[in-house]
């Protein structure tokens, strides 16, 4: 394992010190492990708090700022934050208008945010939770912990964040977050595993011509292993997997996110995006807005995920609304 770290144990601490040094527009509480905006928005405003394991940067700290999150609480690498942290975040940003937790659907995240919500309620903070579960690689059945939350988190944080910034009430912000999630589907393919610093080697190893199809963002193996094929074929399959699940039809508009998992060059992500746009055009679906880049990563994993969010006028208008965060800016 080769990594630019000091020790495997201090990864989160050292990275937070870097975030603090790099972003005067953020306030980083190194002890509580909470990232907030340096300048608090005018109260009252519904606050958005998100968090999850580290290793997915810029998610979530990179999305703290006007128009998106009020606070992020990063856990250890690939490990959900602890309830104390989430509570500290909620207490730091609640203006009395309540707090929306944006939680990706993983057992650990769900439980830790649930405990934090209980503690917050005890302290008189009103909390709503938006559970993000967009990954169609996982069947949503009694046989699984439900669909994982991945790329849709960006859309939820952007769109619900924009609504909150305009002063909408707690239930409206949470309901919109849920609507964005319900309108979103994702699917990922990995070319390599991810190496957690503390583990020291990749979560899974692939041969020189193998890919992991339907992989998760924590180095969880996918549902099957296959031979690498040209981008065109891989994308065609990913698009049709999502469309099958999503019931998108000709004439629909989408927000499309081609997301790098951390180790894939932007050059390749653009190739993937070109194929996505071409395949969607064949189905009569219009890409109304798009993002191409590393937004929800999985450490050094090579590969990509595609997220399609079915768009309508309200979602697009809020997607276009101003945002000023380290990783997503809109004038």
């Amino acid at each position, binding site marked *: 394992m080769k990594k630019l770290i000091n020790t495997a144990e201090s990864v989160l601490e050292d990275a937070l010190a870097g975030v603090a040094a790099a972003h005067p527009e953020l306030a980083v509480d190194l002890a509580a492990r909470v990232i907030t905006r340096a300048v608090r928005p005018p109260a009252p405003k519904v606050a958005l708090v998100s968090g999850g*394991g580290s290793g997915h940067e810029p998610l979530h700290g990179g999305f703290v700022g006007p128009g998106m999150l009020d606070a992020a609480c990063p*856990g*250890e*690498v*690939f*490990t*959900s*934050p*602890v*309830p*104390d942290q989430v509570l500290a975040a909620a207490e730091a940003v609640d203006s009395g208008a309540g707090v929306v937790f944006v939680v990706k659907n*993983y*057992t*650990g995240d769900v*439980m*830790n945010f*649930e*405990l934090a919500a209980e503690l917050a309620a005890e302290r008189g903070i009103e909390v709503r939770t938006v559970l993000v579960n967009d990954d169609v*690689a*996982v*069947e949503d059945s*009694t*046989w*699984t*912990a439900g669909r*994982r939350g991945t790329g849709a988190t960006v859309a939820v944080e952007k769109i619900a964040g924009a609504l909150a910034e305009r002063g909408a009430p707690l239930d409206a912000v949470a309901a919109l977050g849920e609507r964005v999630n319900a309108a979103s589907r994702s699917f990922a393919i990995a070319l390599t595993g991810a190496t*957690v610093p*503390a*583990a020291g080697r990749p*979560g*899974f190893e692939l041969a020189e011509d193998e890919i992991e199809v339907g992989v*998760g963002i*924590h*180095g*969880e*193996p996918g*549902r*099957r292993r296959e031979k690498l094929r040209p981008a065109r074929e891989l994308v065609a399959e990913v698009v049709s997997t999502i469309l099958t699940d999503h019931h998108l039809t000709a004439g629909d508009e989408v927000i499309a996110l081609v997301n790098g998992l951390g180790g894939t060059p932007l050059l390749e992500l653009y190739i993937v995006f070109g194929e996505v746009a071409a395949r969607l055009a064949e189905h009569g679906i219009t890409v109304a807005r798009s993002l191409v880049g590393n937004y929800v990563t999985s450490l050094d994993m090579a590969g990509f995920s595609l997220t399609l969010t079915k768009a309508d006028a309200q979602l697009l208008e809020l997607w276009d609304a101003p945002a000023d965060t380290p990783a997503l800016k809109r004038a």
Partner: protein
Amino acid sequence: MDVDTRLAEDWVRAIAAAVEREHERLTELDSAIGDGDHGSNLRRGFTAVLAVLDGPDAPAPDGGPGALLTRTGTTLISKVGGASGPLYGKAFRAIGAALPPGQPPADAAGFGEALAAGLRAVRDLGRAEPGDKTLVDAWTPALEAYRAAVAAGAGLPEAAAAAAGGAERGARDTEPLQARKGRASYLGPRSVGHRDPGAASTALLFRALADITAG
């Protein structure tokens, strides 16, 4: 032999030592069907628990075993994260709550009730059924073996030894199961053939109890 504060502390320290010794194996099990952090999660948690026990703010020696175990649970919740943090944290808090202060130290049967409360807490929070390939699958046979031993007249040492055996059997028996809860469930049929990391750590927990109570 009763469950006094000393025994509770010995147990927690023995678990911490076992986790320190075995964390790489736990992480390896978690790499196969999870995200490769179970060992470091528990290690971080029990390192923090030891720091509490050795720190200026340690639970008072006369505070009773319940307070010590509750404090252990609270510490795990606030340090571990992931699925195992809340689950083990709530479990220790429930065990602690079942050993209230001012009561005489629990005997083997009483401690069995406390362990049962721990399992109930896990199941309440995680909603896993036996057979879902989680730590419930180690804890359940551990508790059954413990109770059977107590019913047959065993004291704490024998009951704990039986529980350790039951937990280890339970952990091994997760191998052919297909996971239905937690991260391993995403793998579908590919989760079959691997031991559940949480069940493996539960086995460490009961083996530690057997070790510290054994002659």
